[in-house]
């Protein structure tokens, strides 16, 4: 793409991306009060080709955000309510026996809810690991294999899963392998007082938001390509690597807190998330390069679900977020005697 696009084309695409992104947020904001960070996180995951895990108590608008996003972007949206008795075939589809007009019987693949652009996996931790793992191939490879036949999912494909952190009885926490496949993990917080008031106004009155379609799948695919072009300096990339290394106990850059409370640190996917998230942030900040601030702004959603606390950390009630804050504070932006002058 780099060689095909002229400077004007690229510039136009950047402007288009920035403009449409702003409009997408505006449209969703008409439906969703507040939660801007969550919307940003979902959009960044979408434009980076990743998936997002939303964690929060019920009733905070997770499902509404995802529905609004599908409506604004003109994307196919499906919702799967995960329950303990949900089977893999229920989400990926199955072959059913049909009989044609001549009375001849044949199997036909009936697509499941995964065959959509945006899949809302509601309360994903309530399904059994068998069903959860059915998502693995779809999330990573963006294809589904049933009865030896592979079915490709149409891009863009994004899984937006939600889970409830409080009702843990009868739940199946997501295995580490599956958690690592989520690009971001977003924590949905309670709205503020003003936002609550606005939510009441919009939901208890005769208010109906007609969301306009701002983008489509083509725009999203072009934006994905554009984001990958954003220049990343060597020392910024080195910073991403060191941040990821710092989450692993026993490494050169790990902080004291990480050494004490972390059992497993981030995989290389964490560094990928940092870089890609930073690139989107840079473009959104009308910049053509990734800065340290861009990286730092996506550290929490990129790495929080890739870190597993040890028993001591769990026992002492240490949160992953506090460890990441400590890592950010103790990881210099430039090392090897090249620390910039303050």
């Amino acid at each position, binding site marked *: 793409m780099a060689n095909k696009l*002229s400077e004007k084309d690229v510039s136009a695409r950047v402007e288009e991306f920035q403009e449409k992104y702003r409009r997408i947020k505006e449209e969703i904001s008409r439906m969703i009060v507040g939660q801007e960070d969550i919307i940003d996180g979902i959009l960044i995951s979408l434009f980076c080709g990743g998936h997002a895990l939303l964690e929060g108590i019920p009733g905070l608008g997770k499902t509404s955000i995802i529905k609004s996003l599908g409506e604004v972007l003109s994307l196919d949206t499906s919702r799967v309510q995960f329950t303990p008795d949900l089977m893999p075939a229920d989400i990926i589809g199955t072959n059913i026996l049909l009989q044609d007009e001549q009375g001849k019987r044949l199997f036909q693949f009936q697509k499941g809810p995964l065959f959509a652009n945006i899949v809302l996996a509601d309360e994903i931790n309530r399904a059994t690991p068998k069903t959860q793992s059915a998502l693995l191939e779809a999330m990573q490879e963006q294809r589904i294999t049933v009865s030896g036949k592979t079915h490709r999912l149409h891009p863009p494909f994004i899984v937006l899963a939600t889970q409830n952190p409080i009702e843990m009885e009868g739940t199946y926490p997501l295995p580490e392998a599956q958690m690592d496949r989520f690009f971001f993990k977003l924590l949905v917080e309670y709205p503020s007082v003003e936002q609550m008031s606005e939510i009441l106004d919009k939901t208890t009155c005769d208010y109906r938001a007609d969301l306009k379609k701002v983008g489509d799948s083509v725009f999203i695919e072009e934006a994905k390509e554009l984001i990958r072009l954003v220049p990343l300096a060597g020392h910024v990339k080195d910073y991403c690597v060191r941040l990821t290394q710092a989450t692993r106990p026993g490494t050169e850059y790990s902080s004291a807190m990480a050494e004490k409370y972390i059992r497993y640190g981030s995989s290389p996917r964490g560094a990928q998330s940092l870089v890609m998230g930073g690139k989107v942030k840079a473009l959104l900040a009308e910049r053509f390069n990734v800065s340290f601030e861009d990286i730092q702004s996506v550290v929490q959603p990129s790495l929080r679900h890739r870190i597993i606390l040890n028993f001591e950390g769990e026992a002492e009630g240490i949160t992953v977020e506090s460890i990441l804050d400590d890592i950010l504070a103790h990881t210099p932006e430039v090392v090897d005697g090249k620390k910039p002058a303050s």
Partner: protein
Amino acid sequence: MLDNSIAFEKLVTALTGRKRLQRLKCYCVDGGFYGLLFFLLITITRIFEPIKILPVNNYLWELGPVLAVAVLLAAAWALARPIDRQQQLINADRRLGLKERLSTANEYLKKADDNALSPLLIEDAVARARNIERSSLYKAEYPGRLKYYPLLLAGILLFSILKPGPGATDELMDLGQRIESSSRLLAARAGEKSHEDILFEEMRRFGEELQKGRVAEQEALERAAEMAELLQQRIENLERSSLSAEQNKGVDTLEQQEDVGVGTAELKKELMDLQALELQERSESAVDMGGEPEEIREAEVLADLEDLSAVRELLKNFMSAQKGKKGLSAPPDSMAGDSLKEQNATAGAAGTEKVEDQRDTAKPLLKSSDKGVSRVEGAADWEETKKIFLRSLPPVGESIVPEERRLIDFRREVEEVIRKEEVPLNYREYIKNYFLKIGIIEN
């Protein structure tokens, strides 16, 4: 795109050039700081040990060259060290809040064709940099060590005042070495004599101080001149005394007998008498050959009556008479003058240096009121040493051999004379009684 790249390249060149200048300035200041620190340490060390950097008389003259060398070395080091271009841009990004625009653009400058966003990035970086004021873009760095300069200079001046005076110049070092060697010569000649020891010690110390540059030049020259004069005077006196002692063995002048105390004067007087007795013996021989024995007999009677002065006078007259008859010479009244004449005659014959009679021209300062040699304990400063030394100088021509030694020598000679029976038999008892009486010999 090309314009932006050129503009960016100019910007980077200006940034690195300014950084080089800043580094040069800071390094020069640092070099000066370390030069001053070094000189301060040297100045402090000079209080204890002289350290000479340049052949100048005043230490402070060395400050300029030391400072210049330090600054030049620092400047050379600053210019020799390469400047990391990318690092400078990273620092500029941080300083100017450009969010890694410059450093990333610099990295993507050469691969602009591979990345469609690179031209936009470079253009953006140049535009941002142009919007920044030049004073902010090229931030001046304040050389922090400059504030320590007054402190160091004050320290150098303070310690220079505490340690005044020149360094050990070649002239003073040479003078010191000569004085030190002279003091060793004096010590070798003086033997155990106390005042020479003091002078020797003083000269040795002074020589060391001169070589270490601990004495001011003017003071050193004056002190050295005084010391050299005293030394020369002392050496001449020693040589003269030594020569006089050789020639006047057992005899000294009558004038000196009046000056010196009872012991030495009487001994000398008795020596004269002994010589008179010898002459008397000769006169007996003359009598044997037809002389006049009445005078001898009269002298014998007088000697028996212990009227030694009368004996001497009688013998002197007798010798004068004999001189008139047989050409024998009597001992003169003034032996010192004659002795000097004889000494000079002997010296002239031997080709050695003549000794002048300086008794009448001697300086009042040199006239000693102290007799004999006194030992001075403890260290004295130069002025005190000089006074002691001047007081101790003996009159010209006087022997400085202690009277005890002289008494021992004299006793030995008397005993030898009696033992060898050189004295006529009839006089032997008188002589023995005489020496017994005055305590020279024991019974």
